[in-house]
């Protein structure tokens, strides 16, 4: 059990901030305010935030915004960022065309 286990723990009200419209995830255009709001809706892990808002799911797969998102979520939950697991890195490292991926074997006609 830690501070993130009981999802009914009171983390206070969502209070708007002047820079809430700042874009944090550039690939998917997700703002700081959207991330903060999602935390207050109950999404307390990076994986949940990513699945709901798509931040970190764009072309760079979160290589730019992952740390920023973690900081915002941790502040909102009033916990150490170290408590938040990063989202899973997924292959391929860079976008790859389907017909390139398909050529796993030599004799394919694709």
């Amino acid at each position, binding site marked *: 059990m830690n501070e*993130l286990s*009981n999802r009914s723990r009171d983390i206070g009200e969502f209070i708007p901030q002047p820079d809430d419209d700042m874009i944090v995830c550039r690939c998917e255009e997700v703002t700081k305010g959207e991330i903060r709001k999602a935390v207050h*809706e109950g999404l307390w892990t990076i994986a949940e935030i990513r699945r709901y808002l798509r931040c970190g799911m764009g072309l760079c*797969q979160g290589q730019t915004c992952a740390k920023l998102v973690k900081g915002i979520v941790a502040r909102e939950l009033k916990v150490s960022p170290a408590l938040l697991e990063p989202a899973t890195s997924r292959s*391929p490292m860079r*976008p*790859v*065309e*389907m*017909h390139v991926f398909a050529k796993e074997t030599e004799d394919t006609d694709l």
Partner: protein
Amino acid sequence: MMTADVIVIGAGIIGSASAYYLAKKGLKVIVLEKSDIIGNGGSSRNGGGVRQSGRDPREIPIAMYGIKNLWPHLSEELGYDVEYHQDGNLRLGKTPKHLETLKKLADKASAVGLDVRMIDADEVKEINPYLSDEVIGASWCPTDGHANPLKATLAYYMAARKLGVTFITGQDVTEIKKIRGKARAVVTQDDVYEGDSIVLAAGFASRKIAGTIGIDIPMISKLIECLVTEAEPPMFNQMLGTAEADFYGHQTNHGSFVFGGSTGFEMYKKDNGTPVNYSDTVPCICRGIIRYVPQLRDAKIVRSWAGWSDNMSDGVPIIDKVDEVPGLILACGFTGHGFGIAPGVGTVISQLVTDEDPVCDISGLRYDRFYAKDVAAGKAV
């Protein structure tokens, strides 16, 4: 120790939806989740199909109920967009043998009242002009569709939480215990939770947990692997599948395509605690896709993912009360096609808890339907 009217084990879409409908009835619910993440199992790792076609007739009634009564207004009901589309399911064939397979499936589904029919190449092209000329026909179910499993799962969680359901993550259930002849206590590594009813919706982990109270569920885990492309211009909204199961999938609201598929080794993959992609699966899915939707050959894949499905020995889940263990309700073994029926399952589970008659026929999904093959065939003396 915490107590509630109902303890739900598993915060996937089945557990979260059950919790939501139970809370709507005014019951106090605690949901226990082994992972630190809500919906981290099969609920977030599936193709998003909301279909009736291609299913075993035993689970068609609950699929039809949800598609008629729950999915169309689910986003409004929960207050979050679940990206539901009802634009039909095409299951494609390239050979007469494929069409035979598809027709058999379609006939079985028609027999229980589903509108699914065989269509020819021209009609297929009319519905989806992007398909290869090699497609000679398909089965077509116009009322099927798809939704976003990531969002739908979290939507049920967030809506249930708003109704006062307590979700506790990182709780690995080690045992269910009887108290005065009734299943009542759920023991985790940290605590004991007590409830008048216990709903077991923990995917494949349900087998081990049910085993602690003497019930065995004949299921195994199977690896599911998918790929996701970058956003493409809008092409089509149907859910696609093939007779040969080369691939399945759809285009999302975001524009990316999500496609799953198989290599034939799904039952024999390693489990090192984390589902990982095998190097041969995504290439195999790509080949399947390109052979049916040639235009996608240049689409870029941005990621791939894997997950475990809980496969029942006869391919349909258990949704039932256990007679020998009063208080215990099972909702597991969805065999890779639980997402689309989750709203219906949540509704029915809430009715089983409150002793109401289920809104649809679930008599084929009982826990005690498993017999040795000779008995099942009526040959035992």
